[in-house]
């Protein structure tokens, strides 16, 4: 389990995360929802130190990091070792082939042998239905293919948690479905995931728990069923605001 406590993050004096405490259970899929600019991506990025909160802490059963104090290289490495991020715009390395994108971190960071890393990469590509694309460059592939490869890249370092920051927001519905199917499969296999998304249908389908954030405050933290079936007035507004169905 990941336990984040009292996270405060400010940008130029503006509070983006206001004393947020939240747990993300292991082996489950947690979904973070909220309007744009609510701070949900910032919270997710804090887990991987892509954003450094002013204060608060993150702890795993065997690791604890206090954001307010200097973080040693060793702790930063351990923290990042536990998680791996999948980005909205996938952020593949354009100068590397598909295979090299997936094997770069295992070979460079984990010192896995090239043969083993490539074997693992090919097996991951097979799982996402993209075998045969090993020698291509990212620019030669569709967005959906690139995002599936970036999921392989994240899985290749065997992180405890996969963090997904709006993984399908930049894809058209057909490509989005390809990616969501893979995430659904991972969720069913018990991969720990934390997903920031705007896709309510998907959230409802895969989430074991929902965290709703608005203006840097945690508004809801609980089971998926409660979120959708017994919404508070504000969550009801949010849900109906993003639906095209007539109100009432």
């Amino acid at each position: 389990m990941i336990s984040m406590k009292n996270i405060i993050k400010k940008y130029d004096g503006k509070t983006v995360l206001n004393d947020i405490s939240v747990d993300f259970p292991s082996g489950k899929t947690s979904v973070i929802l909220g309007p744009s600019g609510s701070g949900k991506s910032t919270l997710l990025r804090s887990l991987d130190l892509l954003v450094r909160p002013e204060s608060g802490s993150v702890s795993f059963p065997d690791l604890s990091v206090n954001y307010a104090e200097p973080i040693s290289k060793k702790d930063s490495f351990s923290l990042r070792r536990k998680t791996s991020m999948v980005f909205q715009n996938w952020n593949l390395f354009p100068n590397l082939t598909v295979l090299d994108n997936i094997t770069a971190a295992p070979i460079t960071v984990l010192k896995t042998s090239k043969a083993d890393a490539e074997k693992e990469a090919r097996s991951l590509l097979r799982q996402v239905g993209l075998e045969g694309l090993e020698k291509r460059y990212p620019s030669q592939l569709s967005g959906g293919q690139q995002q599936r490869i970036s999921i392989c890249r994240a899985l290749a370092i065997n992180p405890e948690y996969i963090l997904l920051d709006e993984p399908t927001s930049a894809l058209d519905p057909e490509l989005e479905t390809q990616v969501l199917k893979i995430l659904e499969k991972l969720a069913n296999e018990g991969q720990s995931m934390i997903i920031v998304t705007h896709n309510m249908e998907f959230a409802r389908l895969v989430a074991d728990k929902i965290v709703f954030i608005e203006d840097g405050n945690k508004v809801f933290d609980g089971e998926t069923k409660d979120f959708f079936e017994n919404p508070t007035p504000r969550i009801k507004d949010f849900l109906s605001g993003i639906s095209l169905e007539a109100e009432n």
Partner: protein
Amino acid sequence: MWDIIITSLPEMVGAMLQFTIPLAVISFILGLILAVLTALIKFIEPSENKAIRYPYLLLRGIANFYVWLFRSTPLLVQLFIIFFGLPSIGVQLPAFTAAVIGFSLNTGAYASETIRSALLSVPQDQWDAAYTLNFSTRQTLMKIVLPQAVRIALPPLSNSFIGLVKDTSLASSITILEMFQVSQQITAKNYQPLLMYTLAAALYAIVCSLLSWLQHYLEHRTSKYVKGSEA
């Protein structure tokens, strides 16, 4: 006309091979090394560790001063100070060494800004992606950012190199018998300034054309992964 060209050409090509090209190539290599170091010092944010931070900031101050100094003064004046000026404080350099130092420092100052802008043009997203995979800053630079920056920096760096080849003609003013100086000497004997200087211009143009071709080749090589390039 042809016999003048044929008699003076070996001497001019000789000067080109002995001075013009070695000056340009050596100075460009040294300048490029200096430029990469300077660009990285200005690009990489200092560590929070105080023991490293302050020496690093001092180094950055020196880098800033160096780039400012060499971009704010004419190359010819720099060469004069190094070759004619430094002996007054006991630093006497051979002309070729003085020229290499001047050209390297000058090229390094300009090229460092080219490289820095190329590094800046690689999106922050690439750093984030590398950091989430636990790459160190050095690994990210070597494997991800520099290879992308090289492609972006190639055309402006080629400009610098081509400019340097032509600027070596300034070395004539600090007693180096490079190609342009030789063409002046031959002109003094045969009174054919139009012909001799046109010949010198043509030789510079040939070398620079070869470099343009090399640039084109390297651009193609480094752009394999870019959409629309025919790799």
